[in-house]
């Protein structure tokens, strides 16, 4: 049963539409950089055409097809003209480079120059190989903790604070902004803003070990009302089980290895080694965007996480089919 469901899940995955392209910007940061990209692209393209034309012209001008050893050329008049040509070309090159430098600095200032009095703040912590996202608040019970799926309001500046729990990672959603390294021992901050509602994919961009390739995240940009509803939902403790199946599922969760690493607020599970699962049912993907959050994929993941993401830190769980089904159903209710 799991294989068929996994396939249907993979088909779903293929329709995954999270934007992931530096040249399809969704906010002021990425579009500022996109603008700069195209300006510099056309400058370098022009330079390329001119230099290639110069070499081509030089090559065909006096080409000799003989393989005989030709006498040496002495062309003082040509050298004098060449001095002028080379001098002019160097001068133009220097001016062009100044232009690139100027535009680069201007764009850098513009991209970093976002401010807001009371922005949404998200603390991103990189782990091997998933992302912890905390929306800090001075009141502990108003703090949201989630993983891999980050929600932001559309059109509002958002501050991202960075940190790492282990090695260096790099937070990168190309349609939103350039990348920023998450360095252990350093914290830094940068602004993002998304102007078009939608889902934007991101990936780890700094090599971080075995599963660097499967360290994705997504940013969901939604209007203010939807975002606030999401916030309110995330602040609630986990849903109480309301059927014998889900009661059994919670029991399985609390009596197996799951509790060693995961939190479900409202239960006794409180470890922060792995992603917070209090609202795991509301997320579209699991395992840092590796698998779709379907019952089949979730069950396959719980049984053998090393199969689709070899080397990750979650151990296999040899549950009997009844327990597994109950656990998957229970996790699915954690909306």
């Amino acid at each position, binding site marked *: 049963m799991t294989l068929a469901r996994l396939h249907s899940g993979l088909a779903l995955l293929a329709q995954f539409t999270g934007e992931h392209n530096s040249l399809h910007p969704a906010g002021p940061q990425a579009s500022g950089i996109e603008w700069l990209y195209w300006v510099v692209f056309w400058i*370098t393209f022009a330079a390329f055409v001119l230099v290639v034309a110069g070499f081509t012209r*030089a090559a065909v001008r*006096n080409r000799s097809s003989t393989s005989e050893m030709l006498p040496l050329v002495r*062309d003082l008049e040509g050298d004098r003209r*060449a001095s002028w040509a080379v001098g002019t070309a160097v001068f133009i090159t220097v001016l062009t480079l100044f232009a690139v430098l100027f535009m680069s600095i201007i764009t*850098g200032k513009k991209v970093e120059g976002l401010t807001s009095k009371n922005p949404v703040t998200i603390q991103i912590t990189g782990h091997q190989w998933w992302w912890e996202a905390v929306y800090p608040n001075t009141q502990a019970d108003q703090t949201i903790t989630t993983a891999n799926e980050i929600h932001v309001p559309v059109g509002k500046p958002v501050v991202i604070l960075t940190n790492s729990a282990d090695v260096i990672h790099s937070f990168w959603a190309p349609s939103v902004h350039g990348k920023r390294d998450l360095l252990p021992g350093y914290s830094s901050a940068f602004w993002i803003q998304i102007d078009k509602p939608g889902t934007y994919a991101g990936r780890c961009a700094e090599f971080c070990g075995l599963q660097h390739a499967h360290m994705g995240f997504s940013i969901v940009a939604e209007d203010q009302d939807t975002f606030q509803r999401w916030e309110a939902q995330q602040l609630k403790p986990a849903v109480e089980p309301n059927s014998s199946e889900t009661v059994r599922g919670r029991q399985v969760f609390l009596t197996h290895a799951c509790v060693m690493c995961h939190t479900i607020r409202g239960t006794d599970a409180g470890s922060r080694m792995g992603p917070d699962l209090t609202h795991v049912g509301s997320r579209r993907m699991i395992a840092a965007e590796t698998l779709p959050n379907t019952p089949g994929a979730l069950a396959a993941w719980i049984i053998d996480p090393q199969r689709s993401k070899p080397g990750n830190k979650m151990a296999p769980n040899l549950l009997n089919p009844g327990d597994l089904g109950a656990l998957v159903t229970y996790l699915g209710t954690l909306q």
Partner: protein
Amino acid sequence: MSQQVAVPESTREPILARTWRQPGGFWGWFQNVHHTAIGVRFMVTAFIFFLLGGVLAAIMRWQLATPEHGVIGPDLYNQIFTVHGSTMIFLFAVPMMFQGFGVYLVPLICGTRNIAFPRLNAFSYYVYLVGGLLLWAGLLLRTGADAGWFAYVPLSGPEFTPGKRSDFWAQMITFTEVSALGVAVSIATTILRYRAPGMTLNRMPLILWEKLVISMAVIFAMPAVMVVSYMLLMDRTINTQFFNPAVGGDVLLYQHLFWFFGHPEVYIIFLPGTAIASTVIPVFCRRHIFGYVPIVTSVVATGILGFGVWVHHMFATGLPQMSESFFTAATLMIVIPTAVQFYCWMATIWHGRLQLMLPMLWMFGFFFVFLIGGLSGVMLASVPLNWQVHDTFFVVAHFHYVLIGGALFPMFAGLYFWIPKITGRMMNTLLGKVHFWLFFAGFNITFFTMHFLGLRGMPRRVYTYGPEMHWEGLNLLASSGVLLMATGVIVFIVNFFHSKSRGRLAGPNPWGAGSLEWAVSSPPPAYNFLELPTVNGREPLWDALPNQPVVTGLRDDIPEVLVTNSLDSEPQHRDELPPASIWPFLAAIAVSVAFIWSIFSPWGVAYGAIPVAATLLGWLWPRGHSPSPRVPEEV
């Protein structure tokens, strides 16, 4: 200066040949200290490592050809990309472009009989070889280094890479950098003190200028990476905490030290390419190079500016805007000297008489490919653009355009140019053209495609990707180019072995070139020059007077070279070079034992020092006769 030759040539030749003869046979191989032999060894070994690194690249492209491809898993993939990068940089590019070409050519172009410090030079080869074998032994034992060729901490540190994987990598660095430093000292000394009389600084062939600048860059850059790899080793073996953030260590310190070496390294690889360009282009344009002084200035400027741009590898770490802008400016500035050289080469071709023979064909490949790499480098210099394309396949495309364009294309130009000197036989032109077009097409198919992958968000160093990212078409295209490149290289190898046995005899100067290595027979005799030459211009053979004088006064019965002063190459005194010796090889073995032992136990440093000291004593033991007094002699 001109003197009558004291002894007739016919009787001098056998005396010189006996004096400079290197021992033959199996044991003789380990005693050889002549620069032509050691230079060829560097080239052949580096080329073998190039082939091995290429095989790894092909495996990676096979794995990435389709999404979720199961050719190799993440563990092996990480080892492969780490060993590929480390091999290409440390075991191929520098040993080939700097050590190989440098050791073989510099004494010949200087017009002298051997390199300075010939034993140190031989020692450097063995140390390099052991370092390369160490890295590859790790891979073949499935404990290959797997933290990338840059081995960033803390990933490469004791906590996240237990075992010996990172140690193999870090100690390989020590081996190769000791080797590069030894050769740099030899080459710089040869250039500064062994030049033929008349080859003043302002007449020095451009290739010597570039080798001198590269040697200096090696001497200043390599210690940084040796320090940082040793700090990593100490963190891993004796629990120092340089890079452990939990107790105040600093992960960015590693990056600063690494890239303080790492960026000059790019120029250490690229400047030999420009050296080959400035040597080959005049020959096939039948004229002196245009803009000798601007080119020399550019090369020196590149060597210095190369030390001021390292932070552009770290733009994404979140350093302050102001300091990042400084490094943007420095990075853009280094475009200028390279542009000057490009314009001078263009002017040389423009006002010359171009003959598009094989080396020149590869030069045009170099212009085209390196130009694209340089222009995408302008993009990477800009901080905001760098935030987007850093650590993506765009950067993979960029540095392959720069390094393959700046080193591999000139390397093939140089090989087609100098192999006739080394083997005495010409390479086949038709096969050479087939090689060029296959390689050129394959290279551009593979690497130009990667620019698009990077812009579409594909990060580097991923062992697979999902179909939902829509990267499969471009990846398949990129992988297909590998077949063309590989075929091209095979054609080259076939051509080499075919030409080596059956090629047309080259004679001393098949290209009508102007530098001194073309004054001697191909391959050069053991003593290089029967008559030590003097020089009357920047292209010694082209500018020679009808009765250009030769140096006399050196003894033929002991291996003597003429030492001249650095600026004006006025003869100063004679210097006796050491004969063939087994000690450099034994010392290299002792040093290797100590280095490798120290990976496993810190006591390896203490106990391993004993055989090192013993072999060095043997190396430095007095030779029984006192060298002839070093007095200036009439020449």
